[in-house]
């Protein structure tokens, strides 16, 4: 197997959700090496971590995202792929720390103060992470203070706010204003069932998406702008 074949196999493992040799999924790859073993092998062979990231992992997750958009696969398969990607990322981590490989960017995400609905926010977090972003999840009932504190430590991060209650949409308005007050340049993306594009414009947030794919597309559009 040459290096290109190896990268293709890693891509396939992530696309189909083959985590490691022991995981039973997908059934027709039982007993075969997964993203875990193959990434280790690739690094041993001297393939550059940035090549593994860009030519296998991110390409795989792009394919997964497209299949999801075309309704060929659903949330579970997407999460299994994200897990295979993470198994591979474990090996790349040291290179992220030295700065040799870079992720696409950072997303700080949370459910805003006054709200505890987090299923949608968690989905967005997992899928954005799978798409190559670092995600800092602040959990639920997150105050403006907590967002601001976290932004202080991660000045380059995009910030995501989720709300499911109409009453917490109001909190979203004040939290967005508070964050913009402290950090006018930070990019804020909002979402949640009652949130709309119109509401985004009204409260002065920068981006809105109705689902995880939309969130990834918006985040990726920020990179292309730079």
């Amino acid at each position: 197997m040459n290096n290109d074949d190896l990268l293709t196999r890693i891509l396939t493992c992530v696309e189909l959700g083959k985590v490691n040799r022991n995981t039973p999924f997908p059934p027709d790859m039982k007993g075969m090496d997964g993203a875990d073993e193959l990434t280790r092998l690739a690094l041993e062979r001297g393939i550059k971590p940035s090549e593994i990231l860009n030519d296998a992992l991110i390409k795989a997750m792009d394919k997964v995202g497209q299949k999801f958009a075309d309704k060929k696969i659903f949330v579970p398969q997407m999460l299994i792929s994200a897990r295979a990607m993470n198994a591979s990322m474990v090996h790349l981590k040291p290179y992220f720390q030295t700065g040799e490989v870079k992720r696409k960017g950072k997303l700080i995400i949370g459910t805003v103060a006054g709200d505890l609905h987090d299923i949608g926010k968690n989905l967005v977090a997992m899928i954005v992470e799978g798409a190559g972003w670092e995600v800092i999840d602040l959990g639920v009932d997150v105050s403006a203070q907590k967002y601001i504190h976290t932004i202080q430590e991660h000045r380059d991060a995009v910030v995501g706010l989720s709300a499911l209650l109409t009453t917490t949409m109001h909190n979203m308005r004040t939290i967005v204003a508070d964050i913009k007050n402290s950090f006018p340049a930070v990019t804020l993306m909002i979402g949640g069932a009652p949130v709309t594009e119109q509401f985004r414009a009204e409260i002065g947030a920068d981006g809105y998406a109705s689902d995880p794919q939309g969130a990834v597309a918006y985040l990726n559009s920020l990179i292309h702008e730079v």
Partner: protein
Amino acid sequence: MVCSIPSSGLRISTDNILKSLGVPVDQADDYLMDKIQELILQSVGISSPSACWSVFPDPRFLNETGTMSLEGKIFHLNKMVTLALSKSTRVAFFVGTCGDAVELLSKQLMKDGHSLEGLIVDLIGSEIAEDVADFVHKKIEEDMGADGLKVTNRYSPGYCKWPVSDQQQLFHLLRDNTCGVQLTGSSLMLPIKSVSGIVGIGKDVKNQGYFCSICDADYCLYRDKK
């Protein structure tokens, strides 16, 4: 009144979990079905579903303002809920919960990188909370039936534009009869997998099913589903 709910009182179905995951039932593979079934068993096993309720006499309804006065407090039920409850001569407030073990299991799974399993367990927790509400609603109906009284639909603060902040008064009236569920300053219940609400009681009331056309919460995913 307090009741702990036997697991036979729960009706968590694989189909509902698939629906929440966005997977068409006819496209779910065996791997996913087995996983869901296994996680339902595990989650139901560690959950401690329970519900508490108290009955209060002499509610006064003001249809024009959409309010109810009870025990010297004003509840902002909103017109639609007031109208539906207006013939009640008593009302029951209830709080039901799935307990926090399922929530903790979900968090742990996610932390360990098993995001799909964590998500499924989280969805099961929400289903249990909804089932608890169904159970307590029926229980109140049975109890009242013994006195020749009927019950209305149940309504929850936060639904149909009834502000969640009214939770403060609801919890105040329930005093310690809340099955250990705590209310935060922002009117949310902990454990998260909890539900609260009101049921109208009287000779001339009826359970009408949900009538979405009167409610103007257009964003509600429950709209016209029941």
